[in-house]
């Protein structure tokens, strides 16, 4: 009798222990948010991120390219005509001008190559603009030098390829105003190397969309900009979803696990080892960005103090592994079989 009671008590403790262990395990699993893969599709007013990419943007043709912050420009063309501080020079060859952070240039009717990023890490901000004229407008800010190779277009009626710069000069002279026109037949080149901090304004881009693919993102990316105060406020850059283009993040490792985001939601993504701006394309005043790769954390909320992790827990991951649950009855059967063999289960 005594041994039976002891056995029943043992079984009670065993069952209770299993319940407690299961509950504790579930609680622990709910608190663990392992690195996972996502695909984020977002409509944005602008995007800022750190990248280790070495080049960016597909080639573009633009009516005007404004560069604020210039280290150097190299011009080459057989009919290049240049005016330096009011004195005309028919250069017709190659010319190099040196600038600095306060130097700026406008290039008219040129085609730009992909932008080369010369630093190991560069901070970029891309801002599509509402167009005020034909073609798209687009602002590109860089913390880290950028090189752009420009090719001039042939004359079209009265319109010529040309340039004008402030605060630049030949290497051996002080900076001043430099302007000029390129060859009538087009095909001249200008290589622009920006200062360490630069802004490029593309105006009237035509014939090709402003886009790119496969840009590696290196650091946490906040989909916001700071609205200067006082007090300064962090504002979301998420725009409205449309029927064709929803703001959503799909956790690709978990079937049917996705979060939807609305205009004004603040979003923070902390990349894992490999995370990419898979592609982006701009339209006047907005851009569509698709980001994909592994992430350490995804947080969203109504504001900076309301950010909450949206990452699936380890429990969610286990829950999605259907085959895991088919193993549980087998494990339970095994445990019961062992207990039976040891004579620890009560006889019926």
């Amino acid at each position, binding site marked *: 009798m005594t041994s039976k009671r002891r056995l029943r008590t043992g079984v009670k403790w065993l069952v209770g222990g299993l319940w407690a262990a299961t509950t504790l395990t579930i609680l622990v699993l709910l608190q663990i948010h392992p690195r996972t893969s996502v695909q984020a599709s977002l409509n944005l007013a602008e995007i800022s991120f*750190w990248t280790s990419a070495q080049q960016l943007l597909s080639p573009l043709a633009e*009516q*005007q390219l*404004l560069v*604020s*912050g210039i280290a150097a420009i190299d011009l080459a063309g057989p009919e290049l005509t240049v005016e330096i501080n009011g004195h005309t020079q028919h250069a017709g060859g190659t010319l190099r001008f040196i600038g*600095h*952070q*306060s130097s*700026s240039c*406008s290039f*008219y*009717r040129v085609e730009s190559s992909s932008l080369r990023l010369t630093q190991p*890490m560069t*901070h970029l901000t891309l801002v599509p603009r509402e167009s*005020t*004229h034909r073609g798209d407008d687009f*602002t590109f*800010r860089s*913390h880290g030098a950028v090189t752009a190779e420009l090719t001039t277009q042939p004359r079209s009626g009265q*319109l*010529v*390829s*040309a*340039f*004008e710069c*402030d*605060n630049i000069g030949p290497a051996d002279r002080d900076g001043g*105003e430099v*302007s000029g*026109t390129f060859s009538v037949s087009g095909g001249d080149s200008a290589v622009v190397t920006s*200062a*360490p*901090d*630069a*802004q490029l*304004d593309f*105006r*009237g881009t035509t014939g090709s969309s402003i886009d790119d693919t496969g840009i590696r993102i290196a*650091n*946490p990316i906040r989909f916001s900009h*700071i*609205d*200067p*105060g*006082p007090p*300064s406020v962090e504002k979301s850059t998420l725009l409205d979803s449309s029927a064709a283009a929803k703001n959503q993040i799909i956790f690709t490792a978990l079937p049917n696990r996705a979060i939807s985001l609305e205009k004004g939601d603040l979003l923070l993504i902390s990349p894992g080892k490999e995370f990419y701006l898979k592609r982006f394309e701009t339209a006047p005043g907005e851009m569509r960005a698709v980001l994909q790769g592994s992430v350490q954390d995804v947080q969203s909320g109504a504001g900076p103090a309301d950010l909450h992790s949206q990452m699936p827990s380890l429990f969610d991951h286990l829950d999605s592994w259907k085959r895991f649950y088919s193993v549980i009855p087998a494990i339970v059967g095994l445990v019961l079989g062992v207990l039976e063999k040891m004579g620890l289960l009560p006889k019926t």
Partner: protein
Amino acid sequence: MSLWTSAQIQDLQDFGNRKEGTAVRKDARGPDFTLISIEGHVDSFAPNSDLRVNFYLPRSDPGQDDSSIFVEASELVDSEHYLMLSSPKLKWQSGDLKNFGPWPTHDVIDRLHINASNLAIRAGRRIDVSNSLYSPAFVCTGKCDLATRTYTIHFKSGVDLNKLEVSVNDAAGRLLKNLNQTLVCDISAVSDCIKFPRDATRTFTLDMSAIPAGKYQVHLIGRQPNTTDTTAMSFSIYNHP
């Protein structure tokens, strides 16, 4: 790397004669201008330098004390949100020439990798909440050459501008016509060219070498393309002796 560094210098730290660190700068939003920097000269400097800021101010009016004198530094292109504000408790030199320092770059500037070419500086005396008398600042690492009276003004506009008109009045309100400037696209290569794109820090120079020392009022009028809209700003500047 830079993000990590910024995280170490969140907000402004007190270094006695100044607060220095990172903070979001109040820039123009909408059509307004923002004055970014008014300088006579900024020396290029190596890491671990000790900077000094020299500037001139006329004798203060009654009711103004040393707490109204300020030196502020930021970035021409705001990448790291760098900000330095001199302490309002500083005791300034009694003469016209003011000297601010020490300002060691290893405290913050070197850690944020800010170059001399991207350093913005504003100095002067605060008149009231929205008005200041600016004095072109000379940032030096050693002996300072204060001879030039051609100043560099860095500004930013909240809208695209295709024309900027600069005019200067003396203390009596007379327009100094020889200082008028109109900055436009020189080349009409496209019909609606932009001279000053919005949110970009741009520069013009003000040559005050031919006019007497004293207080002057500078007026900026920006013209927006394809509209009759304008944007304007005025500020006071002290042309040093």
